[in-house]
């Protein structure tokens, strides 16, 4: 269904839909002080647990704070955590995967067995145990989630590097005496970024979920800082009187995760048409 301009809408529709949802969340996160109608910390006990109204579109919480404003500011924490966690996982995993594939032999065996080992822990358990060791804070949540992602990225980077290593231009680079470091960063890295970026989009969604789960358990962002996880956790205590306190943060998580998942799926379809079916 190509248009006159040659743009294949069908091929790009998932990327566009995912991008739109992600764009809304990112816009809210970046421009929170301008977008949010109130400060997320402003208490007003006279207005506590009020339902949605013209003044407070998504109601108020148990301390009279505006739920919409808190949900908007919470997008900041989620995006910050996800961005740093995915960066930690992407950089760590890519370096390990490329090194393993490039040098092979014992180096590869040692590195990939270590990755298999990390992979054998359920992700949430590993994140929770790491948080126990590092202590509860947003920064530590970023590091813990990032470590959880390293094995996945390393496997992908290794497989992609192995494919690139079979290409003639790598042989050519070796024959003209290019150093290993130069070959890895100048010749291999640029050629394995496409699959890694697709994986990064999916990891972003998972990072948002993990951060919310950690905050929900009281191990991530600490009140009064708003995060979707801790908003939901607090909201559960008022479910009978104020169900919106449980619905709003969950809906925000859902939109964000759906956006990144659609974006990841769409990018995979676009970069590798064989993957679609």
């Amino acid at each position, binding site marked *: 269904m190509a248009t006159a301009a040659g743009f294949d809408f069908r091929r790009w529709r998932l990327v566009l839909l995912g991008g739109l949802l992600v764009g809304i969340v990112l816009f809210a996160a970046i421009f929170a002080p301008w977008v949010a109608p109130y400060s997320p910390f402003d208490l007003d006990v006279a207005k506590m647990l009020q339902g949605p109204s013209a003044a407070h579109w998504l109601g108020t919480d148990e301390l009279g704070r505006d739920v919409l404003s808190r949900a908007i500011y919470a997008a900041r924490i989620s995006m910050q955590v996800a961005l740093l966690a995915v960066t930690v996982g992407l950089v760590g995993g890519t370096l390990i995967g490329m090194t393993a594939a490039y040098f092979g032999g014992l180096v590869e065996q040692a590195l990939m067995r270590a990755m298999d080992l990390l992979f*054998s822990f359920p992700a949430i*358990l590993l994140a929770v*145990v790491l948080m*126990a060791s590092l*202590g509860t804070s947003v920064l530590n949540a970023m590091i813990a989630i990032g470590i959880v992602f390293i094995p996945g990225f390393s496997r992908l980077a290794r497989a992609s590097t192995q494919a690139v290593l079979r290409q003639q231009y790598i042989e050519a680079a070796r024959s003209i005496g290019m150093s290993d470091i130069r070959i890895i960063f100048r010749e291999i890295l640029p050629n394995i970024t496409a699959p890694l970026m697709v994986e990064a989009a999916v990891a972003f969604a998972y990072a948002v979920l993990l951060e919310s*789960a950690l905050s*929900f358990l009281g191990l991530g962002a600490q009140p009064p800082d708003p995060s979707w996880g801790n908003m939901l956790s607090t*909201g*559960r205590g008022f479910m009978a009187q104020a169900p919106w306190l449980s*619905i709003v943060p969950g809906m925000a998580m859902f939109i964000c995760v759906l956006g990144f998942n659609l974006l990841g799926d769409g990018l995979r379809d676009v970069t590798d048409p064989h993957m679609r079916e």
Partner: protein
Amino acid sequence: MIRLVLTRLAGFVLTLFAASVVLFVTINVLPGSAAKSALGIHATAQAIQRFEAQHGLDRPLLVQYAEWLGRILQGDFGTSFQNGVAVGPELLKRLPVTLELATFAFIIANLIAIPLGAWAARRHQKGADRSITFLATILGAIPNFWLATLLVLVFTLTLRWLPPGGFTPFTANPMMNLKQMIMPALSLGVVSSALLIRIMRASMLEVLSTDYVRTAEAKGASSRTIVFRHSMRNAFIPYLNVAAVEFGFLFGSVVVIEDIFLLPGVGSFVLVGIINRDYPVLLAGALAITLFVLTLNLVVDLIASLLDPRQVKARNA
């Protein structure tokens, strides 16, 4: 076949040993915090020193690990820093709760995923396929702890059909046990089915495009015969591998869901261990979950080999 089993068993033991090292080092790498948590933030330096000496926390990490491993191998998981309760028996008491929850959730996930995945593959690129794929995308984006909250909102607070939480053993009162387990199991199972639908669909699509299925179609075999007799068994091999990983994931996800529904399982045990920095509790809980996941992967790997004799032949060649 025996060689395959022995190789897999050796790998399993090695991985478990390495996992125990990782867990122990991760949890014990920061000194001092266990004593402060057990004694309170106002504990004096002497009290902290005494606590650490009493529990052997002042010795080198390697010595602590060797002792801990020695005790674990004899079935002694130590005692809780917080209340002095023996961790091993407590863990055994909690294991059936988590196992029931994860199994129940896994059954729900498969009941959704297998028929929908197979149906989507059979109706490839038609309306049903597109709707099911879209449904899988939606389900995969729902945080399981949010779904749990919504279920409580609807079935407990609004309709008043189900209790908000708690646990009654199946043997004591089967009906109450099911009533208490259905919402936690649905929260985990429905979300997990998203990935399994996609895997089932992909596995079936691959099998349906093979020559022998096309031959069966050409010979006029019915749709039912093609799906159930010729395709399902072969589609199950890759499906089973992913499903096992997902079962392990379910077992790990119980940390959050058990907390919501006040279920006294291994997950809530781990959480209590973290919040109180009760290292023997945390270590035992985390190790139990890891042991379960690794065992599951081992069993599935072996079953997959049995279902597909080509794998054994390939390995022995």
